[in-house]
């Protein structure tokens, strides 16, 4: 069990979807052992069981301008669940709902959503998304440092 686990989701080769992965790369440069997640959302449930605090970063589409940063706790993330189109794969919000049904939610789950709107294969994220990823990396770094320094819970 680790104290804090940071997971960035996304596809580095699909435009704005790379945001979560970019945050992971930036955090690693700053010494945080952040994890990249590009596969099935179901695997997240197991990963979450390894930590007390989990921070996730993913690209979201809420209709806000690209680069907008949304921060929410896991309990609210169900609102972002896709319209049920996932089939052989489960998205992050589905994984949260499933973890809750199975009573396997981590002690604390915080999600940073970076608004994206361009997902063409083989493209780079937009400058506004790159800038947002940089800001989120700084926010997460500060949060990790605060949590690592804090007294263990309970």
């Amino acid at each position, binding site marked *: 069990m680790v104290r804090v686990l940071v997971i960035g989701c996304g596809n580095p080769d699909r435009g704005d979807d790379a945001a979560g992965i970019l945050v992971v790369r930036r955090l690693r440069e700053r010494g945080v052992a952040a994890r990249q997640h590009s596969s099935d959302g*179901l*695997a997240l449930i197991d990963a979450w069981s390894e930590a007390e605090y989990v921070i996730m970063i993913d690209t979201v589409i809420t209709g806000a301008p690209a680069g907008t940063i949304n921060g929410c706790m896991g309990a609210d993330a169900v609102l972002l669940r896709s*319209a049920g*189109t*996932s089939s052989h794969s*489960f998205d992050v919000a589905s994984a949260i709902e*499933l973890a809750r049904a*199975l009573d396997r939610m981590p002690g604390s789950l915080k999600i940073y959503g970076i608004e994206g709107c361009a997902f063409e294969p083989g493209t780079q994220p937009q400058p506004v998304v790159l800038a947002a990823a940089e800001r989120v990396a700084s926010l997460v770094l500060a949060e990790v440092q605060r949590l690592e320094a804090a007294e263990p819970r309970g």
Partner: protein
Amino acid sequence: MTGRTIKVPILTRVEGEGSLQIKFRGERVEDVKLTIFEPPRMFEAFLRGRHAFEAPDITARICGICPIAYQMSAVHAIEKALGVKIDPAVRQLRRLFYCGEWIESHALHIYMLHAPDFLGYADAIEMARDHGEKVAQALRLKKIGNTLMTVLGGREIHPISVCVGGFYKVPTRSDLRELVDDLKWARDASIETVRLVAGFPFPEFEQDYEFVALSHKDEYPLNKGRLISNKGLDIEASEYEDHFFEQHVKHSNALQSQLRKRGSYMVGPMARFNLNYDKLPESARQAAAEVGLKVPVLNPFRSIIVRAVELVFACEEALRIIGEYEPPEAPRAKVRMRAGTGQAITEAPRGILYHRYQIDGEGKILAAKIVPPTSQNQKRIEDDLWQFVPQLSALPQEEITLRCEQAVRNYDPCISCATHFLRLEMTRE
């Protein structure tokens, strides 16, 4: 004459983008169309001009669920074109690799995608609220399959270890021994799964199928054998295109595969089970016998039990291979380039996957052909619905829709290999 239209905007738990239209005239079914509108992905075209050694990694991208199937059919076909003989230990490792994919894919489909149909839940999340223990079991089973894939392939999605001639790197005995306890648990959980799903309610529905699967004299089929059917087919992979053809139908972007002069056919767990029952390990046969599952299984809704029996097989086979494993002297055979054409068929979780490559003397791919299992089952799914829907006509429209979705899911269609969501549209005139 009264008319009504049912539209279900999204059918979940089927892979790919497509829709299903069923047209009634009175109580009579007038038309059934499985439409796949996901744009063509052009893999066969962009393989042309690439080096043959790139084919396993390029084709693995066709699917995130069954990348190993694509890698296996690709390497076998290219090795055939180049006349490469692989080490028997490498072949066993490839079977083991395939077992990992079968375990994760079958566990996912049985519990997370198909079981909710039988138990009356909208999805696995809703099902988990009442059957948390079973869903947790499914997640553990799936994870064990994924771990096996990671140990052999470097990562679970789009593995990177497979190459023409063998593997870039092979595991040590101790790497594999670490998986044994989990696989023993998985085998026992799979036997429980057979018992669980055999208790589901099944609609009365049987068809006179032509089942098509690989067959090997002493192995349950994964990556070697002749292609046979219950209606007389018995061919080598190199003869596949003499007997099967792909047809473009107006309503679908995926080609429909058919047997010449015979039409649709079924590939996948039921076909393998019915044609290869005697090659299953004792534990899998016992699990089938215990729940009264006998050859031939002709009710496609019972494919969920067959899939669970294959889960037992995959765990048992993985344990056997690990128990007997001696690392190969070299991880891969030496490969000499030559011009040629090679074909291969392997058994993806949802059925046979055909690859053909024509290569020039420098190793450049001149032509490629890939026939995924879902293209092969696509016509058969339509044929099932033609026969199944009339017995539903008295039911409420919502119930008809659910039963049709369930019937499609019998085939575990992976429509990204051939669709992303399925829209059901039903019209009555």
